[in-house]
């Protein structure tokens, strides 16, 4: 597991993260720095060309309080519609599955059905309820996701989940599309006398003018 995560995380360099000054310390780990979180990224055969990792999973060991911000573009992708519904239904979540390669946008009812099938497969593997699984997709608009390749990769992806920095870094690579660098960061600070950690990963290089709500 370690060596495949390590290999995946080295596929592209990491972006320099320009953190503002403040009462925090930057630490390694990205999305797995905070307690309770695991992540993994792998090549699942979704990208049009090349073997850069293209499938990522982030999980929480306990029910996590969940929030989301979504595009206000009225032509919203199927995973956006799905996540908004799930977060309307549930305040908590346990997993986020992210695929690169196809955006599953402008794919109509069939695209929405694909989201349900993928989320259901993750829920089954992790023994979760459907509404505890959220989905993000990015890539070519108008194409449905390569569902067979995605579904057949899930058991291996779940097996790769790790609370290490390599888990976070491999996931940060797997969510990229035209990005030249991966984007991942974590900080540690004291809140109310307790040390807390916040970590994150992001992707994006083109079609960037977010108006999320």
């Amino acid at each position, binding site marked *: 597991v370690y060596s495949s995560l390590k290999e995946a995380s080295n596929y592209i360099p990491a972006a320099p993260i320009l953190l503002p000054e403040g009462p925090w310390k930057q630490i390694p780990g990205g999305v797995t720095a905070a307690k309770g979180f695991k992540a993994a990224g792998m090549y699942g055969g979704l990208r049009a060309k090349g073997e850069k990792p293209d499938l990522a999973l982030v999980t929480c060991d306990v029910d*996590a309080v969940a929030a*989301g911000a*979504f595009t206000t573009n009225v032509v919203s992708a199927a995973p956006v519609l799905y996540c908004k519904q799930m977060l309307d239904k549930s305040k908590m979540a346990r997993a986020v599955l992210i695929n690169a390669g196809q955006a599953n946008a402008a794919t109509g009812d069939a695209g929405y059905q694909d989201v349900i099938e993928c989320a259901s497969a993750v829920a089954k593997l992790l023994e979760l309820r459907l509404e505890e699984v959220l989905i993000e997709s990015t890539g070519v608009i108008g194409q449905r996701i390569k569902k067979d390749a995605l579904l057949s990769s899930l058991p291996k992806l779940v097996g790769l989940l790790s609370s290490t920095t390599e888990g976070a870094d491999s996931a940060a690579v797997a969510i990229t599309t035209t990005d030249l*660098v991966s984007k991942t960061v974590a900080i540690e600070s004291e809140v109310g006398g307790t040390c807390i950690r916040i970590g*994150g990963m992001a992707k994006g290089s*083109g079609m960037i003018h*977010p108006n999320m709500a």
Partner: protein
Amino acid sequence: TMLGVITTDAWVTSDVWRKMVQTAVNRSFNQITVDGDTSTNDTVIALASGMSGSNMISSLDSYEAKKLQVCLDAVMQGLAKSIAWDGEGATCLIEVMVTGTNNEAEAAKIARSVASSSLTKAAVYGRDPNWGRIACAAGYSGIPFQPNKLRISLGDILLMDGGQPLPFDRNAASDYLKNAGKTHGTVGIHISVGTGQGSGKAWGCDLSYDYVKINAEYTT
């Protein structure tokens, strides 16, 4: 498309967390731009496990909530800036800082209008300290201000003050832009539009030939 996943082990109630996340998104991801295209897929998911053992944060007005908010803002800003830094074809990050407005939202709108301006972005790529394009982009932002209060600087070089263009060292200003492009560094554009307390930032990147090349080839 931008995607984000944020995780924390702070213990926070759902309604407080959802408001905090939207505030942080407004101060970060909603303040970046590369090409003016708002994607069909933009999403940020933020999960709080509560496993740090901290006290539960159940009010936005508490000290703990304010502390968690600034930490969340910082993480999202760090990630948002790296997206603009890595904009397709970019040679440098552009950080636009606006002060002197009535409130944070007005400053943020002017800043994003300048960061989104194709002419300003192309001028930065051409290493041209084109204060006129910056003034123009601030002027069409939709936020009213007195043109004779407009002050614009590029890094430490003052280009305009009190609405009047100033004599400045063009070579030094152009070298400032060249150096940022050489090091894939940051170009700072500072704009003041008055004496109000509002301030805000936006981030973008310069517009190069490569942006067109990349997107002419990335076909459906």
